């Protein structure tokens, strides 16, 4: 009897400690409800994980340009966007590894836009948005280790309170209100933007720099391909459309070489603007860096058709479980 009481007390103490730490973490972490909504994409994925046939991973162009709702409506493709602002390839890799841990999708589409940056690319706020939403797992730890800057510490990713405790001066009622909020603020990772700000030049011209893929980018692109192939998952490399000059033909060459080596597809969708029907005088909110809602609808429709054509992706529109899920998502 005495032993049982002792065991119960210890269990209670552990539960209390965990509850205290988790509560403080949730109160102090930024909420990303009204702005920087991409900060919620990682966490919102898990309730939908078992219904994901296609995962799109990449940076802000992915969550701006690809609407899973359009893919569902057009071709019955059930997909999720695991993207964040400035998300480098190595974070995308761990996002995919994390996703596979829960459920194996049929196809992974890895965006290459941020492969243009060098190995030392670190942007703490973006890393935090990507990693903080991930559930605790070896993938999360490895993702943090691969992405941290020199001044960052792993423990700050395990217990985010150590990073965000300085917010005590700026806490608002919303931090309490949304501490335990699990509702979605994105549509399967898609963040719509209805603003319009036309691109200055009508024609897209790439930079003539001889920029090459850095070793870390090559490493993680190859790791992603191998991970998918080893798990029997289709993989496609792509560059989402953007009217931006900071891409180069040399990067395309490098990526294509990797894709050829592994026998997979690489599509730079910038080359298909006319087929997609994109008009950068109306389809962008920021002079071409991203697509707005109208651009995203056009591109997503085109993408749905291309994926259906090239990959065997199940049409789930006759599956009641999926239909119920999607009805909820479309009603948001």
């Amino acid at each position, binding site marked *: 009897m005495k032993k049982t009481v002792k065991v119960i007390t210890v269990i209670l103490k552990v539960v*209390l400690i965990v509850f*205290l730490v988790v509560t*403080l973490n949730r109160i102090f972490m930024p909420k990303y409800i009204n702005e920087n909504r991409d900060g919620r994409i990682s966490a919102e994925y898990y309730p939908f994980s078992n219904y994901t046939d296609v995962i799109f991973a990449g940076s802000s162009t992915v969550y701006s340009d690809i609407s899973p709702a359009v893919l569902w409506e057009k071709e019955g493709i059930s997909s999720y966007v695991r993207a964040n602002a400035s998300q480098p390839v190595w974070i995308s890799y761990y996002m995919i590894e994390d996703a596979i841990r829960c459920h194996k999708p049929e196809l992974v589409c890895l965006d290459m836009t941020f492969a243009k940056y060098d190995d030392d690319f670190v942007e*703490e706020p973006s890393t935090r948005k990507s990693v903080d939403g991930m559930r605790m797992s070896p993938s999360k730890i490895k993702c943090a280790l691969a992405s941290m800057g020199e001044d960052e*510490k792993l423990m700050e990713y395990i217990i985010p309170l*150590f*990073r965000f*405790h300085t917010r*005590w001066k700026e806490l608002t009622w919303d931090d309490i209100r949304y501490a335990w909020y699990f509702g979605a603020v994105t549509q399967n990772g898609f963040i719509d933007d209805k603003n319009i700000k036309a691109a200055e030049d009508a024609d897209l011209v790439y930079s003539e720099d001889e920029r090459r893929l850095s070793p870390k980018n090559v490493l993680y692109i190859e790791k992603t391909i191998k991970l998918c192939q080893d798990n029997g998952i289709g993989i496609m490399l792509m560059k989402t459309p953007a009217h931006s000059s900071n891409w180069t033909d040399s990067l395309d060459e490098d990526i294509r070489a990797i894709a050829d080596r592994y026998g997979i597809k690489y599509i730079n969708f910038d080359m298909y603007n006319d087929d997609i029907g994109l008009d950068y005088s109306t389809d962008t909110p920021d002079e071409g860096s991203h697509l707005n809602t109208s651009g995203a609808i056009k591109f997503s429709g085109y993408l749905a058709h291309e994926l259906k054509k090239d990959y065997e992706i199940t049409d789930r529109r006759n599956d009641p479980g999926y239909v119920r899920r999607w009805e909820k998502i479309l009603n948001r």
Partner: protein
Amino acid sequence: MSFISMDFALYVTLALVLYYIMPAAHRWIILLVASYVFYGYNDPADLGYIIITTVSAYICAYFIEKLTVGQKEYIKKRSEELSKEEKKAYKLAVKKKQKLILAAGLVLNFGILAYLKYANLPIAYINYYRIKWFGSTQMIPFIRVLLPLGISFYTFQTMGYLIDIYYGRYEREKNLFRFALYVSYFPQIIQGPISRFGQLAPQLFSEKKFDFYRIKSGFYRIMWGLFKKLVIADRLAGFVSSVMSQKEQYTGAYILLAVFFYSMQIYGDFSGGIDVALGVSEMFGIELAENFMRPFFSKSISEYWQRWHITLGTWFKDYIYYPLSLNKSIMKLGRNFREKGHEHIGKRIPIYIPMFFVWLLTGMWHGSQSRFVVWGLCNFVFIVLGTELEGISAKTVNALRLSERGLVMRSYRAFKTFWLMSFLRLFDINATAGEAFRAFRYMFINFRGFDIEKVYENLSLQKEDFIVVLCAIVVLFAFELIQRAGSVRKRIFSLPVPLQWVVLSLLVTAVSVFGYYGPGYDASSFIYGAF
């Protein structure tokens, strides 16, 4: 590895696990390895210094004891052949040899410490006077020396041991590795306390059972130390240095506030670090000596120094003050004065002369700059004045019909002592003695209005921080008031379990939320870690 880093927390956890899974008789080996890894982690080169101190003290103690044993055997064998005078002469000869060995050990180790601490001091003076007197532009380059972490602390501790062995107070530790642990025991190596062999060594090597109470109690103490360090001390550091670095721009009220806050900062910093050291050690089942005993409740400067950095004070008392006051020349001088009718001076000489040297050395211990010598001597002067004016003070109190034990007098004396010590710390905050005097002067000749908004806007202390730090100081004061009646932790542990958890949750939350740490907050390293 800083005491306030996550690395240290993980390191201690790992060391504790290994310590308690090791058979009890061999646990000290884990402590030794943990101590050397910890010490070498900062800079492996530092290990060289601690090894020199360890080995040299070990060898000196070996020869001192060998001579004592040899002497006993020699006299025992020839007890009937030797006359009383011959025995005495033999003992004197042995003592002389032992004294030489002791002196060699002291000179080597204090020599290393002095070289590392003061090597650049004469160069600085020579350069200064060459410029001042001869207008020379050629400077003698400074010697590049980096003071190994905690060298003052372990040198004092080890030399204390050697002196004790010389006086035959302890038997020497025969196992070199065990002795190495006594010198390097990691919780105390950075900033003390300075332990005595008789108090620490038996605990290091005794076989202890795992006791969850000790872990819990140690954890509470660590959290309390972190509260003092991270919530109070580090929060105030920016304000204090902002005011003192631009004191010309601020009126006396700001300087006075900075002086008050510096007292809180250094107390939070030093005693907080000691709490962490004692808490960690307690988890290993080893109780270190207390280094602080509510110093801000002291009613005189003498009492203050019995409550602040206690182990350094007792070290100086035992190894400098007492030997000097029993020194034949000093006693003779006192006797001479008494014989000439100067009874009072004759009595004071064996007290004040040793005390003068103690304060001179205490000042030098705190730093190589002349301001620390001035600081030490000011302490000496204040203590002498306090002692000499005791009679007048008692008469005044009587005339005012007050009681020394009454709340008014006790509060007044504590207030006076606090501010005297705070003013003396101006030598600590300012870069030179001249700067310290200037700051003191500004406090009174430039005492104009005080605008709290200016503090919030310009002085690294926002309104919210200001409120938090004032609340934390009140909590600290309340804690120490309660502590006067006995251990606060024992009181907490006697509460119902849910209440204990409320207290711990509040403490952990206060430290983790209001602590000055993490990106954007450069938690200052422990001030006394530099000694």
